[in-house]
């Protein structure tokens, strides 16, 4: 295959956000953070149910030791990031804006690890069930942002057949470069993880989709990809290229039906970070207790990519970067398009924290919004093909029924519409409001119908 003349794949719609942000960190190699004296490890770091805590204050724990056990199918185990003592179960500022429970771990400075799993170097001859159990035991969740338990994603519902595994290395969010550095610095971990998931699911077709602004990562993965029988697919630099539905559409040209899952079109999508974590869990036998985080923003003295343990307070990450040069006005966990603004620097890093962003006053400025001039840019930009501005106008007029009819529930909340709007209307925010209201109405109707 002629690599240089390959077609660069993409999807319909989407936007092209400013590219400046990635330059802050994408050439910075990943640093490993020094050991801290204290970690506040959030109990719930997965979508679904919070796991049950199995330690109590005063307990001595070792690194990798189980702290909380999955409490159901959609839940994930939690392990200790270091050795030390559980000082208590405390409330800390949570990443979703509400206080959350966390285990306060005082490090003993020795960082002694326990061996909780045996490595499975010969995973090619291992039973899929054994590998799936390992994925569950290692507490793996989707590391792209949704933090959905990986075990659930890899348990294909009966009746569905999957034939394609897609690794998401698009990293379409501006400013983030954690996945980029991971692919560049540990290509074999990513590819091996992909091969393990492929073996687990009995899938031969494995793709890694990467936006072409990461050409060095593409080249690096291509050096080894043939050994693993994996295809690297260059993707157009276009947001939201890394959204599951759009990625599947770009790479294998299948459309996930509304309300459906990738498995409905025979696909499984995993983040490259998750694949690397799968590789670590299987070949090295270590659970997920640290991840690469892009700590960035122009106000930081020395932005970069850091390997941070879960439970690291954000303020410590900022300290690792040499502190600030100007006072930031916004702290965002995740990317600038879909990440969450925070009101405290004490919020800890969790399994799905891909970025810590600090925006200056200028960037964080609250803009005033005007009325819609119907330019149609939001419609062009919507990756789901929604007429966003019309939906927003309907919602503002209280016509939730009209919005529902016109598929507001299919909104991904990627924020493309609000990004491009020249009148700076809060489009995606309005759609979110309607989605919540419609969900509430549906739940109420269901409750009434049940009587």
């Amino acid at each position, binding site marked *: 295959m002629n690599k240089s003349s390959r077609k660069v794949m993409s999807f319909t719609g989407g*936007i092209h956000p*400013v590219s400046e942000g990635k330059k802050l960190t994408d050439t910075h190699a990943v640093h490993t953070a020094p*050991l*801290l004296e204290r970690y506040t490890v959030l109990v719930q770091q997965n979508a679904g149910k919070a796991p049950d805590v199995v330690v109590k204050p005063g307990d001595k724990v070792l690194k990798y030791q189980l702290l909380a056990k999955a409490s159901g199918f959609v839940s994930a185990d939690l392990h200790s990031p270091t050795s030390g003592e559980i000082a208590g179960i405390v409330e800390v500022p949570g990443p979703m804006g509400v206080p959350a429970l966390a285990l306060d771990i005082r490090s003993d400075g020795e960082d002694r690890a326990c061996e909780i799993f045996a490595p499975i170097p010969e995973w090619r001859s291992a039973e899929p069930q054994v590998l799936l159990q390992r994925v569950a035991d290692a507490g793996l969740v989707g590391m792209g942002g949704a933090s959905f338990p990986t075990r659930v994603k890899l348990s294909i519902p009966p009746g569905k057949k999957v034939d*394609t595994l897609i690794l998401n290395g698009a990293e379409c969010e*501006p400013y983030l470069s954690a996945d980029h550095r991971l692919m560049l610095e540990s290509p074999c971990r990513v590819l091996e993880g992909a091969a393990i998931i492929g073996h687990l699911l009995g899938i031969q077709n494995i793709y890694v989709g990467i936006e072409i602004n990461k050409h060095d990562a593409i080249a690096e993965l291509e050096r080894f990809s043939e050994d693993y029988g994996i295809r690297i697919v260059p993707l157009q630099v276009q947001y939201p290229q890394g959204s599951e*539905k759009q990625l599947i559409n770009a790479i*294998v040209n*299948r*459309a996930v*039906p*509304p309300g459906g899952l990738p498995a409905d*079109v025979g696909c499984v999508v995993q983040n490259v970070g998750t694949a690397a974590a799968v590789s670590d869990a299987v070949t090295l036998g270590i659970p997920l207790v640290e991840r690469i985080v892009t700590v960035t923003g122009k*106000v930081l*003295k020395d932005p970069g990519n850091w390997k941070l343990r879960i439970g690291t307070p954000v*303020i410590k990450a*900022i*300290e*690792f970067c040499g*502190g*600030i040069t100007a006072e*930031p*006005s*916004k*702290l965002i966990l995740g990317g600038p*398009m*879909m990440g*969450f*603004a925070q*009101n*405290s*620097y*004490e919020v800890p890093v969790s399994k799905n924290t891909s970025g810590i962003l*600090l*925006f200056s006053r200028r960037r964080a400025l609250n803009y005033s919004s*005007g*009325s*819609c*001039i*119907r*330019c*149609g*840019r939001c*419609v062009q930009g919507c990756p789901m*093909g*929604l*007429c966003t501005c*019309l939906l927003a106008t309907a919602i503002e007029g209280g016509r939730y029924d009209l919005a529902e009819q016109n*598929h507001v529930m*299919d909104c991904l*909340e990627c*924020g493309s519409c*609000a*990004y*491009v709007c*020249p*009148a*700076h209307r*809060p489009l*995606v925010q309005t759609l979110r409001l309607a989605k919540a209201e419609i969900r509430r109405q549906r739940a109420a109707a269901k409750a009434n119908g049940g009587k």
Partner: protein
Amino acid sequence: MGINDRVQEKSSVRLPDAKNLVLSSSPHLSSSADVRKIMLLVIFCMLPACGAGVWFFGLPALKVLLLSLFFCVGLEALWCFCAGKPVWGTIGDCSAAVTGILLALNLPPGVPFYVPLVGAALAIWLGKQIYGGLGNNPFNPVLVGRVGLLIALPALMTTWSPARGMAENYPEYQAFGMADPALAAGATSAPMELTTCATPLGVASTLPAPEAGKNRFEKIDNPSMWKEYFIGRQGGCIGETCAPALLLGGILLVIFNLINWRVPLYFAGTVFVLSGIVHFFFPQVTPTPLFHLLTGGLLLGAIFMATDMVTSPITGTGCLIFAVGCGIITTVIRIWGNYPEGVSFSILFMNALVPLIDRWFVKRPFGYTRRRREAK
């Protein structure tokens, strides 16, 4: 680096204060585009047409352009002041300036000052502000102004002056009712704006019944005249005569992603095809489709008026229906209507249908394929 090194460094590290943090819902970035930039780009795209208007019709056209611009911005400011809206914020979005320039492009050159004044009042107040300002108007404000003037001051709005170059080629333009420069003694010294002429469409609608075996439109509808019309040597509104300038503006608008290319293409295309069909079967009823394309306000209307963001549909399909509708109504009015020109009326009529079009022709969202494509 060990803990101790870091701890020592810590004292010199400046850390942020959470009190300064603001919260908001994502996305936390926005593009640098805003309404003002869009409007300024539109003005930039209209400059070729303005330049052509001033070149072909001289200083009177420039006077109308500046007056219209001044009145539109001034009346918008006055409205905002009286209504208690932010004055600078509203005229700062430059939409009134766009309206002003477009209104001038839709006026005959050499109209007295009160024509742009009344037009601006109609466009800005009745066409836009009474509905709540930019973005809320159902009808194109410029066309509200123009059609209002057409009804209120029909004589002034249909008095045209000849374009530069027409007097020199007088024999070709005999049918246009101009004073013969050779007959009028000292015609060279006579100011241009005092002479008048008719528009090609006006001539076409008043031509006498044909003699047997002769083409009724022969004198005004032939290849050498098409060339003259294309360049802009024809009577008409300030901005509607010069096709190259309008086409250049249209291409710029498409390049800057300010208009949906479907609208001008399907609008002009529909007029071309429909008038072509009528001409083919009844050559004495209407001139050739090329004549229709190059004369009157079709290009100006299709490129600058029908494409107004606020009053045209959002989706591609909607734009297609809108544009074809405009084309049909324009053709019908031009061929069978009382007015020689129908572009303004057709766009206003279709403007009224835009909310319906928007509701009926929504895009099919992602994943709602009729037939799911299976991968190889």
